[in-house]
């Protein structure tokens, strides 16, 4: 725990040392702001659509505009993690300190996850704004944030894994994006295959559907299990990759 905490702090500082974190933060805010504005205009133009789902519900998982930045920015948050240590050679001094692989992995993982949470934090303001115009379903909103957190927790673990495999940040990013978008596209298999078993399987993977559930306030334990197990498996695999990477510059 001590090592995880030390690495967590250092990683978090390193995120904000490079301009990347700020760029991501700004782009992400603009993107979500734009999406929110678009949704508001839609609602203003067609008041009749505001049935079960308000703009807040549609902001979470309602369109590709929600997934695209997540699929892109999770790999960007994690690409540094191990690839940069290997490039600069600090990997050697890090791994020859008396640290367990899993402690290092968790420190890096949680620091990226923290930045992800920070990215989302300002969107609470939208809810504050909307409150002036009508009631907010706080339960559904809480579930939306929880689902968004779970999705990030899973995708960031894949990014950390990719970063441990890669030797440069660019490779790490590309590999992580391949993993996260691969997982996302696999879920869309639901709209391609027709048999009942296939439908059941792909809807288990279908993040779009999952988020629509979360957005209306449904927290299904199968979903929680799905994302948490992806994170657990990916982080465990990362420690195995690190074992193989020792001694290889």
């Amino acid at each position: 725990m001590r090592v995880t905490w030390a690495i967590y702090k250092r990683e978090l500082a390193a995120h904000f040392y490079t301009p990347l974190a700020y760029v991501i933060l700004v782009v992400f805010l603009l993107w979500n702001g734009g999406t929110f504005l678009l949704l508001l205009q839609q609602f203003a133009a067609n008041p009749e659509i505001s049935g079960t789902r308000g703009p807040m519900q549609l902001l979470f998982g309602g369109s590709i505009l929600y997934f695209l930045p997540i699929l892109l920015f999770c790999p960007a948050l994690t690409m540094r993690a191990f690839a940069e240590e290997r490039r600069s050679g600090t990997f050697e001094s890090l791994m020859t300190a008396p640290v367990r692989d899993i402690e290092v992995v968790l420190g890096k993982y949680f620091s990226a996850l923290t930045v992800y949470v920070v990215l989302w934090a300002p969107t609470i303001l939208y809810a504050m704004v909307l409150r002036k115009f009508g009631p907010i379903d706080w339960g559904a909103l809480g579930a939306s944030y929880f689902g968004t957190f779970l999705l990030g927790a899973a995708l960031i673990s894949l990014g950390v894994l990719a970063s441990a495999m890669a030797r440069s940040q660019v490779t790490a990013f590309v590999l992580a994006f391949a993993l996260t978008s691969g997982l996302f596209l696999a879920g869309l298999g639901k709209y391609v295959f027709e048999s009942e078993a296939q439908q059941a399987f792909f809807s288990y993977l279908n993040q779009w559907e999952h988020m629509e559930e979360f957005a209306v306030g449904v927290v299904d334990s199968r979903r929680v299990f799905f994302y948490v197990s992806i994170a657990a498996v990916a982080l465990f695999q990362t420690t195995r990759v690190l074992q193989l990477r020792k001694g290889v510059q």
Partner: protein
Amino acid sequence: MIVATELTKTYAGRPAVDSISFEIPKGEIVGFLGPNGAGKSTTLRMMSGFLPPTSGSISIDGLDVQESSLQARAKIGYMPESTPLYPELRVREFLAFRAEIKGIRGGAARKRAVDRAMELTQTADRAKWLIGELSKGYRQRVALADALVAEPSVLILDEPTASLDPNQIIEVRELIKSLGGEQTIVLSTHILPEVEAMCGRVIILRQGRVAAAGSLDEIQRSLSSSHSASLTLRGDHAKAREIVGEIQGLTVATGDVVVRDEAVFSLTVSIEQAEGEIAPKIEQLVAAMVSAGLGVREVSVETRSLEDVFRELTTTDRALEETAAEAPTSDADDNEKSDGATT
């Protein structure tokens, strides 16, 4: 105590370190000396637990660095050759981070450890600087401070003075010497004066093998003769040494007898040229070995091989002398000694 047995590392079939064995007693300062590509860094990397050996093993205080990696690493302070650091941290922050992951608990204890390490390496004046803004020599000293910060019982330093100015070279040598006795120190270098200034013992590597090992005196004595014979023998090695001593003009060149397995070992014998032809000496030696009941497995006569090693090493040494001569205070003591070795 550090024990390596038949340590080997091959890269794509090519050996970088080729079945080397050595023992380093507690508290000694031992230098790995050798030209570029000799396998020094590869050996130290394996010692640090970072690089898994292709075969053979290495242990620190009885802990195998691969099997009991975590416990072994807790004893080690390792400074890699490239002195890797995080450029975005300040010197103090970096050392505090390293102290924390090396297990120094509590803010006050960490502060004390960091202060001590900075004082020893004379980096306290840069405590608040960003590492990315430091000069190369300062970066090297911060990396050294990192190796020292948790007061490890074993220090592994890959070229600790590589990018220092002549004054700092002297300071760091003094520091390393003062740490010996308490801590076991293993370092690598290209240059002979470095070894003379600090190390009680030296292991000379060439092309991944031990070319010579022992105290500098022993090695220098063997250098004065120009021929040597390497023998691989089976039997009692004390007996073998005795036989070598009895033959006029022959001496055991290196104090180290490498025991391969139960009874097989190799020995390097130097042959004084003043004694005439060397072939009869070899015949006499082998006959004496055989009649004493020792099995002679291999004999090879080498001419000036150790000198060759030293020539390679002392050429590098000249470069340092020139640098030192340019600076106002040169390491005069070192130059004197190295002159002795070159002639």
